[in-house]
């Protein structure tokens, strides 16, 4: 059975990360498991973790009064879930629901923030990796908003 450091090292989000930083991250990490229908978090809750997904699929949802929850996006193995731990007021802005069995590594946000504060090089690495994924998500959302396949005369 792989230890948590090996699992973190294998995840694309941490690809090529210096071994010394991995040692720092391990102290904030724990393996978690969710089953279909479980919520990883709810909108408005304290965003005290983020997750790197190793298996399964997660729906990011928004509750709309009078309607079924709207699925904004689905994420899966290889993806990262959650940025709200990085920025005040550290509150989730969506619900995250497991669509099947999820295996993930959860990182304690407060623990990570403290380590990033103490080691700015680590902070820069994580911030750049996070920013890259945020950019990808922003671009994808822009395309989604275009309604590309809508009917045109």
């Amino acid at each position, binding site marked *: 059975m792989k230890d948590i450091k090996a699992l973190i090292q294998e995840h694309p989000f941490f690809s090529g990360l210096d071994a010394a930083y991995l040692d720092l991250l391990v102290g904030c990490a724990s393996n978690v498991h969710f089953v279909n229908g479980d919520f990883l978090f709810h909108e408005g809750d304290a965003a005290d973790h983020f997750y790197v997904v190793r298996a399964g699929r997660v729906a990011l949802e928004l509750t709309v009064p009078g309607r079924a929850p709207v*699925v904004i*996006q689905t994420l*899966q193995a*290889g993806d990262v879930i959650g940025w709200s731990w990085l920025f005040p007021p550290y509150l989730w802005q969506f619900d995250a629901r497991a669509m099947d069995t999820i295996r993930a590594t959860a990182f304690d946000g407060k623990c990570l923030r403290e380590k990033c504060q103490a080691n700015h090089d680590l902070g820069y690495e994580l911030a750049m990796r996070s920013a890259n994924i945020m950019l*990808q998500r922003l671009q*994808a959302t822009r395309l989604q908003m275009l309604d590309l*396949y809508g*009917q045109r*005369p």
Partner: protein
Amino acid sequence: MTDPMLPAPWRIESVRKETADTFTLALAPVNAAGPLSFAPGQFNMLYVFGVGEVPISISGNPLEPSPLLHTTRAVGVVTRAMWKLKPGDVIGVRGPFGSNWPIESTKGRDVVIVAGGIGLAPLRSVLLHVLARRADFGKVLLLYGTRTPEDLLFRAELRTWAKRRDLDVHITVDRATGRWRGNVGVVTTLIGRAPFEPKNAVAFVCGPEVMMRFVSLELRKRGVPEPQIHLSLERNMKCATGFCGHCQFGPEFICKTGPVFPHDRVKALLNVREL
């Protein structure tokens, strides 16, 4: 040799509704002519008598060309009239025209088919061709994005394809509705994690032009060389023989040198607003 400007009469054998506004026509020649030989990616000009003529890509299997299949969306005057046709009705067919997906030079490589919306129709012909010659290729993937689950084309076939062990099917929708349990997000999000070998892959892409631009970008980010990315473009094709100039796209005539182009040949044109 027949006159390429002269439509031949073909009888509608069946009309299959694919979605609320998309349908597939199965055609058989009225005259004694045999099946129409075509290559995957080519198109025909379909003429609704008294209404007009439009270019429609062939969605059938080139290795089984009878009946002749075309899948299109009821979106303009001619295709709306076509939508109302019934089995037994006759339409005019000219073709096949244009370039095709370069399937012969793809042998031994991974095949990545990326479809957006109705763009799956011209890609269906290449997918069926590849599946019929499956041993000639490496990994075969279909990455398909559409607006909602209700807009998925060829649903029964998608289910069959998804069960094949020699074909990797990934589907995503921009907006989840009803009981959809699949992926939500644009088709570009499927590319990063798709299991193929970029340097040895050939990508066939068809969909709205904006989608194709961003899909090409993602494929290049994955490491697929530009000459191995092929796009199917669409413009206002009228004569289909490169004479009238309606479909001119910079130095290209989409109907004649296209509709299928390698990405590096047209990439500079794709960002020109006036084209």
